[in-house]
């Protein structure tokens, strides 16, 4: 059940000129969050930006002993820029947790799964990795970006999953393998690795390639979709994704975590 509450900024950690982590008080949203869910954050009281912004709840953690939610954000416009400049202690309206989480009910310590991140798509996969780790699930992480600075929260992923289970790909080869993260996934499948499920979040080209890969490998998968949203709870109908049966599904309430077979990638 989503809650609308004002939560204070506890800390902001800037990784480079554009990427940062925003830590807010957990409120009642944090403890209720399941991996893959998101929240709508309002950047300031003014009319610019006018709408709230949707962000994956990247982690439910603590800051100096205080229960906190972490949002990993890439500053690309007014809203994401403003949220990165809020002073500690500033209260901001937060609506959450929202959306369909990653399917985890049937995942146990007997299973092996894959987690695939592209760029800022790491956000929902961090809390997922924490949960998979807590359940003792063997997890292979594949994380790609343009260069080393695109690869965020590496220490946390490696702590949750084990450094040897984390593989990276960058366009310029500055970290891990030079090339695409989807190549790492294909390679692992070719070497005979089998996963119970593949979880992914990243840019559209990555989703397209992965959708083909998991279909050919007959691999169960869940993708956390991204979309601009005005409301976040199924009312504005602005965030839709085309479905194979010809209709449009709301990313906010029918997703964001969906099976890739629920999306008509040719119409996206």
């Amino acid at each position, binding site marked *: 059940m989503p809650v609308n509450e004002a939560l204070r900024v506890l800390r902001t950690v800037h990784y480079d000129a554009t990427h940062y982590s925003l830590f807010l008080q957990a409120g009642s949203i944090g403890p209720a969050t399941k991996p893959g869910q998101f929240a709508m954050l309002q950047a300031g009281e003014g*009319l*610019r930006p006018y709408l709230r912004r949707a962000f994956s709840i990247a982690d439910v953690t603590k800051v100096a002993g205080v229960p906190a939610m972490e949002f990993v954000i890439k500053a690309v416009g007014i809203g994401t820029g403003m949220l990165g400049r809020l002073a500690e202690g500033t209260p901001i309206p937060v609506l959450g947790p929202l959306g369909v989480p990653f399917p985890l009910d049937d995942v146990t310590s007997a299973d092996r799964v894959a987690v695939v991140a592209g760029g800022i798509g790491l956000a929902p996969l961090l809390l997922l990795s924490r949960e998979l780790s807590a359940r003792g699930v063997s997890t292979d992480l594949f994380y790609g970006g343009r260069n080393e600075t695109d690869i965020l929260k590496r220490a946390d992923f490696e702590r949750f999953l084990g450094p040897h289970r984390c593989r990276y790909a960058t366009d310029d080869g500055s970290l891990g393998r030079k090339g695409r993260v989807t190549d790492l996934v294909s390679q692992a499948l070719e070497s005979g690795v089998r996963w119970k499920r593949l979880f992914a979040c990243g840019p559209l080209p990555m989703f397209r390639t992965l959708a083909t890969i998991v279909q050919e490998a007959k691999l169960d998968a869940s993708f956390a979709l991204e*979309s601009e949203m*005005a*409301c976040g709870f199924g*009312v*504005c109908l602005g965030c*839709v994704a085309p479905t194979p049966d010809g209709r449009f599904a709301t990313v906010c309430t029918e997703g964001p975590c969906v099976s890739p077979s629920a999306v008509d990638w040719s119409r996206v």
Partner: protein
Amino acid sequence: MAVDLSVRLGRLALKNPIATASGTFGYGLEFVEFVPLGKLGAISVKGLSLRPCFGNPPPRICETDAGMLNAIGLQNIGVEAFLADKLPELIRLGATVIANVWGDTEDEYVAVVERIGSDRRVAAIELNVSCPNVVKGGLIFGNNPQALGALVKRVREATKLPLIVKLSPNVTDITVTAKAAVDNGADILSLINTLVGLSIDIETRQPKIGFTTGGLSGPAIRPVAVRMVWEVRKVLPKVPIFGMGGIECVEHVVEFLIAGADAVQVGTANFRDPTLSARLVEDLARWCTAHGVRRVSDLTGTLRTRPRPEHRFG
């Protein structure tokens, strides 16, 4: 001092003048965690068509300064599913329900209104003749007083419920379409729907919205909406009006009432703050108390204009 918040829009009696606008409040039930639906004056549900409608391909929305553009394309579950799956629960929760309806053709409008008929669970029917985001219907009626008049006349014969016509601001003179609607049987007018706008991604040189143009809503349009309410009020002083466009706080509600609205509909602000509409009911009572207003209906149409100079000075 107890404030009387009740208002009468002809045959439509509301416990207070705060309603929510079609397209911004879903079917109402999406808001049960944020708003006690029975507390609102009314809710106007997402525009219903005879058959379910899938709407436009994305991208459907983009933010603009102090507002947003949308071209959803009237995606909805259809009137049958609404009556069967949504309306009973809305009634159980004590909501006053306005059924917003639309069609691609005159016959489709009439058919969807006939399906609701005179079902007393519905407080009023609101005719959407002003959606700018569909290829057929919508603005074809909203921009043309003859076509609008003919449509309203046929719809009027299909229901005994109070009939609201929601007008388009995308016209030269809104009083012309307002009169056409009223002359043909509209009981109440809703104004305004969204203003047609265009927002461009300058890197790709593509429209930000898939439909190219979209409807502008939010605080950016409020002065236009207030002006149009005032204009219609002057020409049709006895016709009840729902005013809407960019309402964010109680002061905006009062502004619309002074301009000539009998009640208001809160729209895009529901996206930004889903709890706002119910809070406005309390804020309005408080505002009236603080300003010595005993009956909120006393505010309607009380604009004190200054005389406009007939000649240029100097």
